[in-house]
């Protein structure tokens, strides 16, 4: 997926420049609550359960300070991504054991037009594998700057 296409799935109201959470479970809930506040999902408990089950399958902390909690749920109608940054870092049981600073929560419905869910995950992994992108994201404060990093402009 092209980076400009990926950028369309982010929203200003799902951007958290400074996460308050200090623990994994709280970080997941804090990001999920951005979707709940904007009424993008109907049932918080069901989606929270799905995200917990996803962590049971394996931590979505992919290493190098990055986590991409994700999943499909019947309680959502659209594919959307929330971004959160934690300056202090959070123990997320990441595969390299290091604290996570950058969080991308991807929520998708059971089926979606264009089958974009897996390509979105793939694009995120590719972008976040680059140290230069991670370094820029660590300093991001505004949604506008964030989108510029995602699109690579």
């Amino acid at each position: 997926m092209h980076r400009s296409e990926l950028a369309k799935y982010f929203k200003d109201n799902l951007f958290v420049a400074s996460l308050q959470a200090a623990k994994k479970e709280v970080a997941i809930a804090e990001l999920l609550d951005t979707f709940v506040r904007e009424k993008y999902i109907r049932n918080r408990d069901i989606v929270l359960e799905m995200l917990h089950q996803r962590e049971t399958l394996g931590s979505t902390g992919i290493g190098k300070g990055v986590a991409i909690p994700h999943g499909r749920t019947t309680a959502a109608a659209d594919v959307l991504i929330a971004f959160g940054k934690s300056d202090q870092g959070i123990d997320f049981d990441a595969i390299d054991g290091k604290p996570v600073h950058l969080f991308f929560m991807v929520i998708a419905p059971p089926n979606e037009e264009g089958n974009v869910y897996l390509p979105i995950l793939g694009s995120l992994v590719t972008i976040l594998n680059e140290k230069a992108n991670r370094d820029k994201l660590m300093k991001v404060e505004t949604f506008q700057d964030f989108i510029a990093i995602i699109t690579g402009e």
Partner: protein
Amino acid sequence: MIKKDLELLVSLQDIDLMIEEVGDVEKLGFSVTGYTELKKAREELSASISKPLLFRYERLRGKLKRAIVPVKNDICLGCFLRQPTSIGVKGREDEQIFTCENCGRMLYWLD
């Protein structure tokens, strides 16, 4: 009680969707070391759903891949057919399980 059943079905399908794509997310580099635990969680959840409803879910899943689908703006997101307004009012209350008249999937109202 029905509301509970509907929520359990949604959670069950969410796990099934996850299981379905385990290979895909693993290829992307995600850890999937807890596959056995996830299957166990699926078994436990399905055991808490009434047998006739679970049978209905499994039958629809086998036939249509997605047994239960979201409804948004009165549109079934399984087949994109507009649902009658009359069932929308009741559907939002989660007190009965409605099915789409067109595709036959169970419906879960989002708005």
